[in-house]
C-alpha cells in the first residue's frame, strides 16, 4: 500500500483539491474490491450460512431449518468422521513424503546433462497432465490382483500375489503410489526450478571448498531451494488433503469406508446424499484446516525471509 500512495499523490496534483488522494485510491480500487468480494466473500458467507441449516438443495420444498451449530457438533461427534481425518492424514503424509523423496531425487538427477534429458523430462511431466479419474482407473487395472501388471511384477520377483485394493493398508499404499505417480512430476518441476535458481557459482564454490556431492546436496542445494520446496510442499499437502478422485476410481472408498478421504466423504454428503447443510459445515471444517496449514507455511516462509 505504501507504494501506491505516492503515485496517487502525483496524480492528485493535476486535479482540483476537492477529492483527496485517499478517495481516488479508493475509487480506483473499488471495482477490484467489489469483484473480490463477490467472488470470494459471497460464496464463503453463504457457505457459513448454509452450514447452520438443515437443508437439502435437491429438496428445497422441504424447507430449511436453522439448527445453529448442530451440523458441526454432529459431524465432530461422529467417530467415523474422525477416522476419516486420521486416514486422510496418513494418506497425506505418506503421499507427500513419497512425492518429495522421489521428486527431489529425480529433479536432482535431471540437473546432470545427459543425452535425451529434455525428452525424458517432458515424458516425466506427462502424468500430471492427465485427468485424475483416468489415472485412477488406469491404476485400478494395474493393481488388479488377478491380472494387473503390478502383481505380475510382484510374482516375477518371486512373491505371492497381493490384494492391493481389497485390504485397507494395501489400498492406502496403492493409492499413494498412484497419487505419487501423478503428482511427483509437479515436485520434479518445482524442484528443478528451485535447483536451477541456485547460481552455478554456489555449486562450484562448494566443489572447490572440497564438498562431496552429498555434502553439497544437503548443505547447499537443499537449504537454498527450501523456499520454493516449501511452497511446493504446501501445494501438494493441500492438494493431497483434497484428494478424492483416485480413491473414487480405485477403491470407491472401500472396503467399508476405510479408504474414504475427508474430501471424498464431503463429495458424497454434498452431491450424492445432498445433505447441503451438513456438507457446508464439513466444507467449513476442511477450509479451517487448510487455512491453518497454510498459515504454518506462510509463517515458515516469512521466518526464512526474515533471517536473510
Amino acid at each position, binding site marked *: 500500500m505504501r507504494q501506491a500512495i505516492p503515485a496517487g499523490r502525483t496524480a492528485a496534483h493535476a486535479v482540483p483539491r476537492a477529492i483527496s488522494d485517499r478517495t481516488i485510491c479508493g475509487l480506483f480500487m473499488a471495482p477490484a474490491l467489489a469483484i473480490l468480494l463477490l467472488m470470494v466473500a459471497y460464496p464463503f458467507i453463504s457457505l457459513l450460512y448454509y452450514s447452520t441449516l438443515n437443508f437439502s438443495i435437491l429438496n428445497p420444498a422441504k424447507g430449511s431449518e436453522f439448527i445453529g451449530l448442530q451440523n458441526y457438533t454432529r459431524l465432530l461427534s461422529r467417530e467415523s468422521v474422525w477416522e476419516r481425518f486420521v486416514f486422510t492424514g496418513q494418506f497425506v503424509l505418506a503421499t507427500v513424503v513419497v512425492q518429495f523423496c522421489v521428486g527431489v531425487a529425480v529433479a536432482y538427477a535431471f540437473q546432470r546433462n545427459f543425452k535425451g534429458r529434455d525428452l525424458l523430462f517432458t515424458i516425466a511431466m506427462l502424468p500430471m497432465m492427465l485427468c485424475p479419474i483416468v489415472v485412477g482407473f488406469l491404476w485400478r487395472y494395474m493393481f488388479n490382483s488377478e491380472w494387473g501388471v503390478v502383481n505380475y511384477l510382484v510374482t516375477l520377483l518371486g512373491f505371492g500375489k497381493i490384494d492391493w485394493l481389497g485390504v485397507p493398508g494395501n489400498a492406502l499404499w496403492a493409492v499413494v503410489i498412484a497419487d505419487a505417480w501423478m503428482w511427483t512430476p509437479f515436485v520434479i518441476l518445482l524442484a528443478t526450478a528451485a535447483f536451477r535458481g541456485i*547460481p552455478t*557459482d*554456489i555449486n*562450484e*564454490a*562448494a*566443489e*572447490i*571448498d*572440497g*564438498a*562431496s556431492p552429498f*555434502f553439497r546436496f544437503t*548443505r*547447499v542445494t537443499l*537449504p*537454498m531451494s*527450501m523456499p520454493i520446496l516449501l511452497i511446493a510442499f504446501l501445494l501438494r499437502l493441500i492438494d493431497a488433503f483434497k484428494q478424492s478422485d483416485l480413491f473414487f476410481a480405485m477403491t470407491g472408498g472401500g472396503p467399508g469406508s476405510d479408504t474414504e478421504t475427508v474430501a471424498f466423504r464431503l463429495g458424497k454428503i454434498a452431491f450424492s446424499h445432498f445433505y447441503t447443510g451438513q456438507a457446508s459445515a464439513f466444507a467449513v471444517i476442511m477450509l479451517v484446516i487448510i487455512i491453518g496449514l497454510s498459515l504454518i507455511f506462510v509463517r515458515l516462509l516469512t521466518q526464512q525471509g526474515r*533471517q*536473510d
Partner: protein
Amino acid sequence: MARVALDHLSVRFGQVAAVDDISIAFEQGEFIVLLGPSGCGKTTTLRCIAGLEQPTSGKIFFDQDEVSHLPPRARQVAMVFQFVSLYPHLRVRDNIAFPLRARGEGRAEIERKIAWMSKIFDLGDILHRRPGTLPPGARQKAALARAVVREPRVLLLDEPLSAIDEQFREEMRWELRHLQKELGMTTVHVTHDQREAMSLADRVVLMRAGRIVQAGTPRELFDDPVDEFAAHFIGSPSVNLIDASFSEDGVALGEAGVPIRLPERHLEALRRSGLRRGRIGIRPHSLRPAGRDDHAAVPVERPIAYAVGRERFLDFELSGQTWRGVLPADAGDSLPERMQLDPARIFYFTPEGVRLPVA
C-alpha cells in the same frame, strides 16, 4: 603456498579456442591479475586452475605436482566468485566453517580457525549475520575469509569486486591488496577493469583472444606497452591515438596532415622500419603546454579546460579528433596555443598495432 605453472595450456570449446597455448608461471606469494576484455580467456584460465574447466591440452603444476586433471576438491585451491560468493542461507561463521566441515575437520579446530579469520579480517561484528543483511564490502570480506580459512595452495578471485558499488570497491581494493601481502598467498585475480588490475597486481597478465599480450608489472604495462591494444586498454584517461604518415621530411598527423617535429633519433628509427604510415600514441599526462621549445608540439584547437579535483585537463581537437592533455595546477586562466608530447613517452605503432621500438 604454491608456485603455479601453466605449460602450453589450451582450452577449446568446439572450434573456438578460449585459451590458446598459454605458458606462464606465477611465483609463490605473487599477486597476479589476469586482465582483458570479455571473452579474452582470462576466466577460462582461472577456471582451469580451479579445476572447474578441463584443459584440452597442456598441463598445470602447483609446485612439482601436476594437477591438470584433478577434480576441484582435490586441488586445495580457494575461489571467490563475482556475484555469489557466500552461501546465502548460512551465517557468516557457518560460511567460513563450510570448507572445513566439507573436509571433516574437528569442531575445536574449526572454532580456532574461525577465531583466527575473525581477527585477521576484523569480522567480529558480522560473524552471526547472514550475507543478505551485510553491505557488499563486508560480504566480500567474509567471502575472502571463507576462501582463505583453509590455507589453500592458491587463492583464485573471479572478478570479486565487480558486483560491488564503486564506493565500496575502492575500499575493497585497499583491503585486498593489504591482506594479500599480509597473508603472502599466491593469488590469481581476474578482472576487466584496468584500474583494478593496476592497483592490485604485482604482475598483470594482459590477455586477448585466448593469448597473453603482455605480462609485467603495472608500471611496465603503463609505460611500455607492447602494442596498441595494451596501450589503449591500460590507463585512464585513455591514451591519445592518431594516424600518422611518415616520410623523409618528417611526420604528419591525422587526415589534416598536421606536421610535428620529432627527435631525430625517432625519425631515424621510423626510417629504418620502412613504414609509410602508422599511429602515434601519447598518454594525457605526457601531454603538457609547450614551452619555448616547439619540439614535438601540436596546435590546440577548440580547447575546453576543466578541473578534476586539483588536476586540470585540457581537451582539444587535433585533426578532427579529441585529444586530452593536462594543465599545470598553477597555470592561470589563459590556455596554451600548443601542447607538447613528452618525447620519451611517445608510442609508435605499425598499422597492425605493433609497437615500434624507438628509444
